[in-house]
């Protein structure tokens, strides 16, 4: 009689413990999901801020005037010279032939 009762109680306690453990696990999983969602939101937010900052730094307002300063006449932009001799201007020191070369 006692053993039957004890076995029944043990079964009940075991089931309760299992239920508690499952519940705990479910809560832990939900907490992790919640944390992941929070992280996702934080990352989305950081992404939005960094993208806005990158766009702000790369906005044409900042670089267009500098670019324009180096822009040549329009004709040259669309029709670049067909042949370009790869010469470094600094080394092009040949003196005019009309002048005597003195050393």
């Amino acid at each position, binding site marked *: 009689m006692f053993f039957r009762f004890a076995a029944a109680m043990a079964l009940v306690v075991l089931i309760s413990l299992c239920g508690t453990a499952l519940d705990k696990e479910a809560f832990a999983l939900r907490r992790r999901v919640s944390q992941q969602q929070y992280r996702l939101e934080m990352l989305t*937010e950081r992404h939005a801020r960094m993208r806005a900052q990158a*766009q*702000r730094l790369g906005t*044409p*307002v900042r670089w267009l005037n500098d670019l324009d300063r180096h822009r040549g006449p329009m004709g040259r932009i669309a*029709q670049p010279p067909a042949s370009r001799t790869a010469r470094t201007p600094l080394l092009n020191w040949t003196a005019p032939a009309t002048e005597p070369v003195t050393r």
Partner: protein
Amino acid sequence: MTASSASPLLLRRRAGWLVTAVGLAWCLLAGRLIQLQSWQNHELSQRANRQSRVAEEVIPRPGDIYDAQGRLLATTIRTRSLFVVPTEVENRWTFASDIASALSLDANELYARLGQYSEKQFLWIKRRLNESEEERVRELTLPPASWGFREEYQRVYPQGAIAAQVLGLRDIDGIGRGGIEESCDATLRGQPGKRWLTRDARGRVIDVIDDPEQLASPGSDVRLTIDSVLQLYTEQALDDLVRDRQPEACCAIVMHPASGHVLAMASRPTFDPNAPDNVPEDAWKNRAISDIYEPGSTIKPIFVAYGLDRHRLAIDDAFDCEWGRYRMGKRLLHDHHPYGTLNLTDVLVKSSNIGMAKVGERLTNEGLFQSATLFGFGRVTGIELPGEQPGLLHPLDEWTSYSTGSIPMGHEIATTPLQLITAHAVLANGGQHARPRILLTDDAEASALQSLSTPLISREVADWVVQEPMRQVVTRGTGRKAQLDGYIVFGKTGTAQCLSPHGGYLHGKYISSFLCGAPAEQPEILVLVVINQASGSGGETFGGQVAAPVAARILRDALVHQHVSPTVKTAPLATRPGTSRLR
């Protein structure tokens, strides 16, 4: 013996009473449980939920706005706003002065507000704090029950003040106001969701569950036809114009005529959407779609093209311009310069009002009205922006004999700048109408729709008007200041007196405009600049003097930016083979 014999009986009786009592107690307990679980279950569950669960609206993140090249024009970041619970504030003055010092607010005003709303559970103190303000508030270590932060979305515009009127604003409550923010609000705003917060007995949130039936969905992104670089060129040109000539207002539109895509649209005065508190009152207006004005001479090519297409005119027609004075009924018309006989091209090149009045007599009022309605005057173009005005085109039965002379020279009719450039885009696009668009959508669908539409006028007429009179306006007419090296530019100047809000005209006040495009053989870019009451050096007001240089500068920058090759051919164009049919 008696005791030992009575004892079991007594014990049994007592045990019986105990069992009965326990049984009754169990029955009562079971009955109560059944009552709670069966009859009162619903009511009690609801009460428990009311006490522990709170529904919260999840505001979706609004969608972003991009330009045609994918540059970010508007995006959203999250900020914190400070609120207090006035009923929980104990020492009101200390509380107010602490917060005021942290947030640079007026302590007396805050104290007064706290007193005014002392019975309330919620009061905004300052919205959209920056990070340092947020930190300073945290360092105050105020009583936790008396204050809190609430997260909100804030719209930021990374490109700065460009295209401000086109973009509009998203107000502090996240509602689009003006521009694309308003017209595409439903797309950009997204779908709000709902979630349930479970609180413990002390009110702390212990669980958050999203409502699966009402999940928040973020707003969709929107892409515009605007090109930020072109927009910036346009805005810089207008800024220089404002600096040099101090006009009352001005605006410019850059359009691709074949697709109707608006590549740039700018107005002055303007504002910085990142500082919405400092917006001048008249800066909100997108003048390119909401200002109506008499277009003056810029409309003349439209009527000429219609007359040619309907065979009421021929390109070799000659018009006696009466040496600058022509009596039309009771009215005496003048030209700015006296001319004798002019051919149709020269009527446009010299912008002769008398010549155009005679064109009007050929077309008659009915023809002029049909022409104006055909090219879209008097009704909105349908661009995806709020606040577009339909212009002003009186019903035909209100037209008089004055109208026959006035309408062809661009009076008695009022248009928006967008209507005018859209009408000219028909000429530049070989007679085909393209609805102006600022939202970049599926190009295949748009081109399919366009291919189904009937041309408003024949291609040869449209090409002739663009490549002959309008080109000669720039080479030898009123628009010579719009000439560009390497490109064949066409254009038309316009100068009209300002309309008075009380009727009639404002004396000495003019609206100067210039419309131009290039290359004339196959126009890729159209530019319209409209300047309201220019002043400054020389006091010039003619469109060819004031607006043409600005329009030409924008056109040049646009052509280079769009990689349109310069046209080496600068000699006058030969008449196309089919053009002879017009004679």
